């Protein structure tokens, strides 16, 4: 017997926690499914297992997650942890694997609060053991208190500085920042600082300033205008070389944290056939949504970074907005109630996103990351290089989906999650077309590995 809900929320990050609590508070029968053992998503990971020392290390932004997790625990929704969602249908069916058993549930409305993933950073040597994403290093710090004894943080994005700050706060100042943001973008970004910044924007700018100040005080070396990044080694990382300005450098290394910003997790919305849009400022695909987060399918809603990168605080409010619209569609609240409850969330969303144009420009990924040199591996699973993608494109391959047939690109275990954005960019470059014209990999269930035994045991 399939359990039927009013709403199923996928993901217990800021958007999912907020949406789930609001839905349940207004009496909607709600199920929240999450892949992790405890709430928080990536940003507030293991928030409930925090000691005072950990909260000090991770800072006030992290502490914010406590009230969201608390609201979730106080609410009447059903919350299933360690649940890997491996299929969703446009009709509202959801299949999830939990403790070695798959279950089938269904709902009138689904909120995908599946957040962001890190933009791939294909540089020479990025497949070597010892190379992780900066996000991965932050997860190790948040979840396990595990830190590298000496790390190069390379790429472009505020996370590089935030992570460095957290490492310093944790008493681990042995790190080097290689900032690959271009001088042109740094300069252009200054014009995008809001002319009359609201308090929230000022807070974000002050936070950035505080990172720089603390890192300078700790003596953390910061190389700027870094390009030509190469990670060297045979079986693991041994050295890193790069240009900074017009100087060359080569330094011994064992751990590298790469980062080039985050992009929406579009794997599931694409599989559902949700209409996609191209976000020029953030250089990524995102599902097309209306002002409530509803996708091109009227019962599929997308809240938070999964609908376009807006950050943790705005995502929380986007979660409330999606929940209010669903409550309205379920006829639990009338239009006037929906709109009056939504108003403060809209104002907060606007306040928290006012600084985005500055951040998007300041930390825009450089060309060598978006369209790597021919010898760089692009598809980590099937070990396919940028040169191979360009070659098949020149030979007539029209797009990412045909590249699967030519090369098996995107057909390994990650199902194209990592190489997808790069393959689209390379195809767009060769064919002189826009990313939207080229399109992205078609995705299909199962989204996660599931055993044949589990499939057979389904009702």
């Amino acid at each position, binding site marked *: 017997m399939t359990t039927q809900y009013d709403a199923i929320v996928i993901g217990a990050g800021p958007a999912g926690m907020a949406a789930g609590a609001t839905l349940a508070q207004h009496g909607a029968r709600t199920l929240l499914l999450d*892949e*992790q*053992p405890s709430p928080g998503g*990536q940003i507030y990971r*293991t928030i409930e*297992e925090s000691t005072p*020392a950990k909260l000090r290390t991770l800072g006030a932004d992290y502490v914010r997650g406590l009230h969201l997790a608390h609201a979730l625990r106080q609410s009447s929704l059903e919350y299933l942890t*360690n649940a*890997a969602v491996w299929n969703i249908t446009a009709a509202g069916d959801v299949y999830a694997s939990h403790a070695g058993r798959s279950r089938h549930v269904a709902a009138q409305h689904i909120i995908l609060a599946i957040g962001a*993933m*890190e933009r791939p950073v294909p540089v020479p040597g990025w*497949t*070597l*053991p*010892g*190379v*992780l*994403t900066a*996000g*991965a290093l932050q*997860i*190790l710090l948040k*979840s*396990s*208190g*595990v*830190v*590298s*004894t*000496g790390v190069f943080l390379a790429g472009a994005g505020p996370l590089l500085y935030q992570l460095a700050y957290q490492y310093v706060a*944790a*008493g*681990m100042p042995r790190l080097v920042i290689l900032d690959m943001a271009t001088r042109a973008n740094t300069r252009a970004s200054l014009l995008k600082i809001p002319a009359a910044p609201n308090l929230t924007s000022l807070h974000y700018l002050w936070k950035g300033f505080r990172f720089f100040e603390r890192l300078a005080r700790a003596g953390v070396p910061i190389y700027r205008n870094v390009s030509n990044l190469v990670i060297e080694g045979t*079986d*693991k990382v041994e050295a890193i070389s790069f240009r900074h300005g017009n100087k060359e450098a080569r330094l011994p290394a*064992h*751990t590298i944290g790469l980062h080039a910003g985050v992009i929406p*997790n579009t794997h599931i919305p694409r599989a559902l056939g949700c209409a996609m849009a191209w976000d020029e400022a953030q250089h990524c695909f995102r599902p097309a949504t209306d002002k409530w987060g509803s996708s091109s399918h009227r019962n599929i809603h997308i809240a938070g970074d999964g609908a376009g990168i807006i950050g943790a605080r705005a995502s929380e409010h986007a979660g409330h907005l999606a929940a209010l619209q669903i409550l309205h569609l379920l006829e639990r609240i009338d239009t006037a109630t929906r709109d009056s409850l939504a108003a403060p969330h809209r104002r907060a969303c606007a306040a928290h996103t006012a600084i985005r144009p500055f951040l998007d420009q300041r930390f825009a990924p450089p060309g060598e990351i978006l369209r790597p040199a021919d010898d760089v591996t692009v598809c*980590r*699973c*099937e*070990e396919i290089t940028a040169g191979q993608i360009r070659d098949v494109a020149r030979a007539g391959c029209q797009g990412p989906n045909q590249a699967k047939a030519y090369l098996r690109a995107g057909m*390994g*275990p*990650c199902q194209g*999650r*990592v190489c997808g954005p790069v393959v689209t960019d390379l195809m767009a470059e060769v064919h002189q077309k826009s990313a939207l014209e080229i399109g992205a990999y078609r995705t299909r269930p199962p989204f*996660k*590995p599931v*055993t044949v035994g589990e499939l057979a045991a389904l009702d």
Partner: protein
Amino acid sequence: MFLRINPGAATVRLTFEDQDITATEGDSVAAALLAAGITHTRDTPVGDAPRAPFCLMGTCFDCLVEIDGTPNRQACLTPVRPGMRICRQRGARSP
């Protein structure tokens, strides 16, 4: 090369390639392996190249390992349990 900032927490014993390692309760398998100094957790099926956990958030699948006999487990999404037997996933395709 990784270390723990508060090494005092409760320990969980498990094995990797039949070698004993200790982890902390609440670790993912991937975090436990990295903290134990293990830098090679998988061989790729195409080039037989060594790999290790990369994204730790379930996206990249580079941390696939064999856990208690079941291959293709995402180490970054699997919490450690006492006595877990973890093996390197060897991905070479059959000829």
